[in-house]
């Protein structure tokens, strides 16, 4: 019986804290995205027209986010029944946007006009314990262009 109680407490904690962290994070993401909207981040490799009056520098943004107990449990159930793993969708969405934001913040420090050729890399962190740890790392990097 105690196992059951511990499990329910863990689930409730995961749900409560996970929900709180997610809502807070989304709020912050949306605000900062508005702030940094003036620095476009574009995926193209070649800039047209090429400008010679700008310096270029690599900018990166890196984030690691962990999933909570509740979401991991739902994802485990989804592995049996199939379907959209919605609980991981928000995790990855947040991680990608946060990584781009951190990259843009670096670009802003350089007074950059834009960041081009941006790339995203995702990896899961589990060190062989894939079943028990659900952390994801997203790295965003690109070339920032800033005036001389």
């Amino acid at each position: 019986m105690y196992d059951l109680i511990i499990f329910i407490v863990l689930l409730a904690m995961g749900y409560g804290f996970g929900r709180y962290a997610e809502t807070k994070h989304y709020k912050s993401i949306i605000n900062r995205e508005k702030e940094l909207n003036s620095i476009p981040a574009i995926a193209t490799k070649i800039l047209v027209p090429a400008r010679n009056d700008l310096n270029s520098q690599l900018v990166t943004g890196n984030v690691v986010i962990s999933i909570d107990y509740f979401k991991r449990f739902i994802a485990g159930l989804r592995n049996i029944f199939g379907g959209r793993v919605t609980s991981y969708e928000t995790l990855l969405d947040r991680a990608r946007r946060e990584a781009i934001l951190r990259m843009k913040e670096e670009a802003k420090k350089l007074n950059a006009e834009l960041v081009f050729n941006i790339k995203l890399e995702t990896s899961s962190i589990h060190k062989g314990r894939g079943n028990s740890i659900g952390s994801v790392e997203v790295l965003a990097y690109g070339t920032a262009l800033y005036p001389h």
Partner: protein
Amino acid sequence: MEYSNPELPEGINTSKDNPLKEFFILTVGLLAVVFVVISALILIVDNFADKIPFEMEKELPISGFIENLETEKLPPYLEQVTQKVLSTFELPENMKITFHYVNDDTVNAFATLGGHIVLYRGLLEKLNSEDELAMVIAHEIAHVKYRHPILSVSHGVVVGVVLTAVSNSSGNSVVNDIMGQTGMASIMKFSRDYEYQSDKEAISSLIKLYGHADGALGLFKVFESEFGKDNSFEFLATHPLTGNRISQTTKMISESNLTSNNSMIRYPDEFKMWLKQQKEKIEKPK
């Protein structure tokens, strides 16, 4: 070329549904599927398991396990009561029951494969009357009569095989654990049904012997004072809650138009003495 950087709407890559909804649908679905599949398998197995001849059951290497318990011969009084209770059962000829006594404080008695029934001193001490003792013995004999030990072992094997086969299928240890627990809960459902069935059979045996079934109520009261009031969920237990066993018993008593609060046959003094000596015997070396 004009480059614009519009604000993107939220919710493209994510779902707005409350995850609790998904949680309940998936959890209830999983529990139901596991429970139904395992119960169906158990019912199929039951059709075969009770066809296993009792002789084969006796040949299983269970005697080693019994020997390890350091069992002793029954004293004359216990022998007498067990024979008395046995006489109320119409057991098949090949179903020979062997009683064992263990000088240990454990408050328990059990029936196992091969018709072995083990009585612990700890339980005998807690009882006050022959009626209660007869209830214990009759309950265990009923387990053997209905082949409950072999059925339970078969359930364990089936559920074990199935759960081993599907474990890790979800890739999540918690989910696998939940599936395992649900499998166990299904087994326990059957285990509890067996307890009720044995209680019923034992009560009819008591009625044959004494004309009333107060021994059953007495025994369950001993359980209540010994193990405390029920403080767990029944679906997590191998045995029904004592309260539920009492209500089944009272129901049976009223259906059979029996009186309650009859006087029960007290333990004879010499048996009480013997129990005391037994206790001292194992306490002395300390």
